[in-house]
Structure formats: C-alpha cells, structure tokens
C-alpha cells in the first residue's frame, strides 16, 4: 500500500513539475450577470478559463461565433485557448446584454 501511495505521489509530483506548454491559464468569472473582468488582455497562446459562479446559467459565445462554450450551468467552467492575436468580443446567448472582450497580443516569446 505504502509503495503504491508513494508511486502515486511521485506521479503527481512529476505531473505538476512538467513544463507548461503554454502560459498559465487565467480566469474570467461569471457573477451577477457579468463577466469579471469584462476586458482581459492576454498573450497569444493563453488559455482562458471561464467559471460560472452565478446562480443562473450562461454561455461564453464569440460575437463572430468562432467559439462557443454552449450552456454553462452554475458551477460549470469552460476553457478556451486564444492562439491568434486579435480582439475577441463575446457575449452570453441567454442574456445578450452580458458582454466581454479578450484582447490577445502577440506572444512575448515570439
């Protein structure tokens, strides 16, 4: 048992220590019918995690439909990697007055 536990621990440590292929994820919270922060600037290649902390379901849907979380219930989360520089406007399909923007700048590594 002890050996197994040790092995598991080692595996976990290795996983945690593995070099990240992209910049660390940043989070946009959905709360009180709003995206927080509503405007976020990230480097190209960044994964943005959207977490629904609200009591109501929401979506994260690009204005140009290039990405769509589909329905996010209370407590659900969805991650999207923004590979290309640009300005991405998005909104909630259930409450279209909820709007947000992700500004993706060229990666600092390239």
């Amino acid at each position, binding site marked *: 048992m002890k050996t197994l536990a040790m092995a598991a621990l080692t595996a976990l440590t290795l996983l945690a220590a593995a070099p990240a292929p992209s910049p660390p994820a940043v989070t946009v919270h959905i709360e009180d019918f709003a995206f927080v922060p509503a405007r976020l600037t990230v480097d190209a290649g960044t994964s943005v995690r959207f977490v629904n902390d*609200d009591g109501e379901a929401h979506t994260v849907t690009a204005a140009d439909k290039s990405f769509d979380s589909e*329905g996010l219930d209370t407590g659900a989360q969805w991650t999207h990697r923004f590979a290309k520089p640009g300005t991405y406007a998005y909104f909630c399909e259930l409450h279209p007055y909820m709007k947000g923007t992700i500004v993706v700048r060229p990666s600092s590594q390239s």
Partner: protein
Amino acid sequence: MRRGDFLSHVAWTGAGIAYVLGARGIVRAADGTPPGAYFVQISDSHIGFKQPANPDVAGTLKQTIDRINALPNQPQFVVHTGDVTHLSTPEQFDLAKQMLGTLRAPVVVLPGEHDALAGGAARFLSVFPPKSGSTGWFSWDAGGIHYVALVNVFDFEAMGLLGNDQLAWLERDLTPLPKSQPIVVFAHVPLYALYPQWGWTTEDGAKALALLARFDAVTVLNGHIHQVIEHTQGNIRFATANATAYPQPAPGSAPKPGPLTLPPDVLLARIGYRTVEMKGGHATADDVSLA
C-alpha cells in the same frame, strides 16, 4: 359558480383583471353544452436544471402533466411556450420529449432561448418539428380561432427578436383575415416591453403588435419570466404564464432576474399550468398551481 369556491375564474375582458391560484381547471356543464375552444398552456420546464430553486424539475413537470391528464374535460391541445430544456443538451431534449409525449392531448411546443443553445435552432426543430413549414413559426385554425406560434429566441444578438422574415410572414398570414377573426398568439419572450432592464422584451415586438392591432380580440400568451403578469394594449390582451420549474422575482423586486429559491410548499404554489377557454373570441384563463 361551478364546483364551489376554489374554482376561481377570471375574464380578461372584464374591468377587474386578477388571477387566483388554486383552481382545479374548467369543469363543463353536464348538459352537454358544446365546448368552445379550450386549451392548456404550460411553460419553462427547464429540464436539466438542478439548483436549489427546484432540484427536481422533471418531478414538477410530471406532476403538472398528471394533473392535466386528469382534467375531466381534456383540452383540445396543450401548448408549451418554451424553455423546455435548461441547456439544450440531447439528453435534456430526449427526456422533455418523452415526458411531453405522455400528455393525452396533442402538444404544440415553442422554443425558448434555453432550447436554442449549442448552435441555434436546429436541435430544437429536429426534436419538436413545427406544425407546418420549417422556420419554427406557423399558424393554424381550430374551433373558430386563428392560432399563431411565433419565435423570438433564434437571434441572440438581441433578445427577443422576431426578425424581418418572420414579420413579413406574419403580415402575409394575417392579411386575409377579417377584423372579427379571434386570434391567439403564442411566443416565448413577451412581445411588449414588460421589463427591458432584464431582457423581458421583444425588440421588434411593436411591429408584430401593429399588425395585430386592427383585430377585435387578440390574446398573446408568453412564458420566459416564470410568473403571471397581465397587460392590455388596445384590443390586445397579454398574459405571461407560471413556469413548471421555478419562479423568478417580480420585475425590479431583486437586483437581477434568475431562479427564486423558496420553501418547497411555497414553490408549488408558484408553478403549474393555465387553462384557457375561448368565449366569443375572448380568453378566460385559470392559472392553476401545484399546491
């Protein structure tokens, strides 16, 4: 008075407009009086919703269906005015379709915005095909009434929105009708500006109402806001319906809309179905709770 004191009855054509919960549906005279148009409206079942406001939305929809199936006079049809599912997933559509299929009366289902997630209208329209056409909006005639089912949830940039195609279709649909033709309109989101601050409006709804204004008696029945609110504009009478899932706060009574969590017995008094009887083109409605 039919069936004693609990059978509350509201004529929207009367001076006083009110509704009372706790009625048991319309009981027709035993002398075989020929029935007028008589149907049931249900709305906002949100199959898949699991929050504290109602952890068992399938259970309350089943209770609603059981009560409708037990009505002594079966309605000519049951209309569901949208948000059948919570998040438009295939599993939620499957369960909703299966449950609504247990109604004894024929069912007409309209989409809400919760039924048009994950890529728009296609999934809803494949599960609940329109009575006619392929757009999702349609009309039919029965018992002397012209029924119109509108869709104001397929364009997410603004909600609700009917769009020019649908408005042009509505104009063509209504043009041949005489002004004495009684009309009943169904749509998910209220067609007038009920509370725009919470999105409880249809941006181009006024254009549809302008087309309906010339008729003597128009009834517009909506869902979306999970509570009964009535309104009159000329000869057009509006009523939103209770949900079968959970109530929402009264307009402006809370910082935001959304599921209202209440004690279980109070919840049951705030959800249920509506019977509608047409007399002389005017609708008489009973809102019946599950309490």
